[in-house]
């Protein structure tokens, strides 16, 4: 691979990471649900760009088939919630008390997770600092095709079975929980 191509790929990687980090931080400070969904879509676009840069475009094509349905349903849910709330901000438990106290609590609720994440990041950095070899990220490139992936799935499907069984187990637990919760909610609604 030529140096120009490597440089272009590196620049696209930096753009991809910046596109993931900036909306990723901004999404937690925007109160409007619709804007959050827009930022989620931007995150998804940059994840796809990064997967192309890592020579795995087919991976995100297949995963997007499932993600599109989730995204559409989440968009409908957000529209419904935004319509019901008529643009009012989300209820927060930080309300109550004096104005100074509310600001102090809000700042503390941001600063303490930041300190926690910084400490965690420093720990990971220190523990993995000597692990990575000095490389230029250009060797061993191979682009897998759809035929290879489907052939691999049909040849050895032990991991597929493991994942499907795990999904079935988690779905069973989830639907059992929501059925019980839904029944209790309906009973409490009837009693009221």
């Amino acid at each position, binding site marked *: 691979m030529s140096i120009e191509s490597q440089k272009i790929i590196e620049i696209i990687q930096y753009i991809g990471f910046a596109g993931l980090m900036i909306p990723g931080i901004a999404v937690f400070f925007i109160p409007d649900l619709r804007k959050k969904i827009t930022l989620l879509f931007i995150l998804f676009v940059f994840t796809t760009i990064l997967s192309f840069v890592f020579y795995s475009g087919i991976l995100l094509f297949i995963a997007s088939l499932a993600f599109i349905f989730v995204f559409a349903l989440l968009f409908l849910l957000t529209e419904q919630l935004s319509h019901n709330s008529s643009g009012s901000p989300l209820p927060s438990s930080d309300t109550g008390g004096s104005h100074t106290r509310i600001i102090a609590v809000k700042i503390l609720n941001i600063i303490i997770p930041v300190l926690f*994440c910084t400490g965690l990041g420093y720990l990971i950095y220190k523990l993995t600092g000597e692990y990575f070899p000095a490389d230029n990220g250009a060797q*061993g490139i191979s682009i897998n095709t759809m035929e290879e992936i489907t052939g691999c799935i049909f040849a050895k499907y032990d991991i597929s079975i493991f994942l*499907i069984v795990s999904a079935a187990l988690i779905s069973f637990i989830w639907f059992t929980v929501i059925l019980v919760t839904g029944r209790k909610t309906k009973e409490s609604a009837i009693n009221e």
Partner: protein
Amino acid sequence: MSSGLVFYMAMILFLISVFGLFVSADIVSVFIAYQLMVAAAIINFLNFSIYIEIGQLWTKVFLIIGLLTIYLLAFAVFFYIYSNTEVLERKTIIKDYRLFRLEKSDWWGEDNI
């Protein structure tokens, strides 16, 4: 970009998602935080798969099946919430889902300001 740098970028992405899980109050933000975590995991898998000659294909197959499973479960969760918005109250859907919430009373006892 070297594999180490990509790993640290993905680590920062993961830490942003952890920060989001602590800070975000509504369920949409929590889902986006999980989405960031999934993105960090994808980047790490793909980053290391480039430098592993054997098993490169299996990494992608595993990622495809894993992502399909995650999104199908997310679809089930959202379908339940969406189909029950009339039964459940809105407050229970958009209530405060924060994992971490600091109140003054957590440190100095009950306060009645």
